[in-house]
């Protein structure tokens, strides 16, 4: 083993204290649930799931306090859906402000991995794909 070697093996996160599908959000959410229409539109664009256990998995992080919450079957916040855009740039619209949006992409960029995107309805309502050249990115 070299002095410069290090492990890149991912470790499993701390366990849930119960069934992940029954996990709850520890922090209050300012958002709302996605409507059926919104969820259907998302699903038409990219792989999208509203599976409860998967949403709970995507709502956790490594903040030390949230490790403790996990043992109580809680995560910081549970996203409304989990989306997996593959290649194209997508627009995330703020519901009440449809002319403004943020952009995410799966292209390699600034060490950000966006293959999976957890969406909270209060901020992110993905409605359509954009031509990357039109985003200024």
């Amino acid at each position, binding site marked *: *083993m070299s002095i410069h*070697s290090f492990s890149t093996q991912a470790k499993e996160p701390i366990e849930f204290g119960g069934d992940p599908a029954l996990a709850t959000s520890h922090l209050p959410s300012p958002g709302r649930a996605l409507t059926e229409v919104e969820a259907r539109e998302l699903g038409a664009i990219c792989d999208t799931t509203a599976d409860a256990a998967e949403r709970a998995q995507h709502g956790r992080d490594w903040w*030390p306090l949230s490790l403790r919450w996990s043992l109580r079957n809680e995560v910081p916040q549970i996203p409304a859906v989990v989306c997996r855009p593959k290649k194209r740039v997508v627009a995330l619209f703020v519901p009440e402000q449809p002319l403004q949006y943020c952009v995410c992409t799966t292209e390699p960029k600034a060490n950000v991995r966006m293959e999976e995107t957890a969406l909270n309805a209060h901020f992110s309502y993905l409605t359509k794909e954009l031509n990357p050249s039109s985003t200024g990115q």
Partner: protein
Amino acid sequence: MSVVFDTCKEMGAADGDVALIEAWMHHRNDTSGLQALTRKGFVVDTMEVAANWGHLDSVVEAVESAMLAVPHARSATCHLSHSYIEGACVYFTFAATPEEADFESTYLAMWKAGQEAGLASGANLSHHHGIGYSRSQFMEQALGTSMGVLRSVKKALDPNGILNPGKLGL
């Protein structure tokens, strides 16, 4: 590194087992050890701040003392993680063993004690971990009247408040 080596030698340091260093290098970024401590009921986290060299001693003493004064505190230690011509990043690791009911309040109290002591003794708010939500409560103390300038810039660039709302205390 040769300067460090020579200085350590001059101060009486002895050569150690290189295998120990290699073992440490191999898992130094593995934070999964937090899980075992969490299961045992430990409050544990790290807090990093930066200060000029002239302030470092007082910052370390003030932060460690403040953290250890929090009920249920067990330890507050520090190492120097980054060094520069002007100063350094001091990186604190703290732990406590409260009752379950006091877990969250103890965690927050140790953070608050450490940050406020650091700011009062000449440190900044964060070296590289950032502010996020949890440190936003200290932004006024850290920036003083400059906080108003930051608010004005944010308002001008983000009039509807949709970019990272709540972060940086904005």
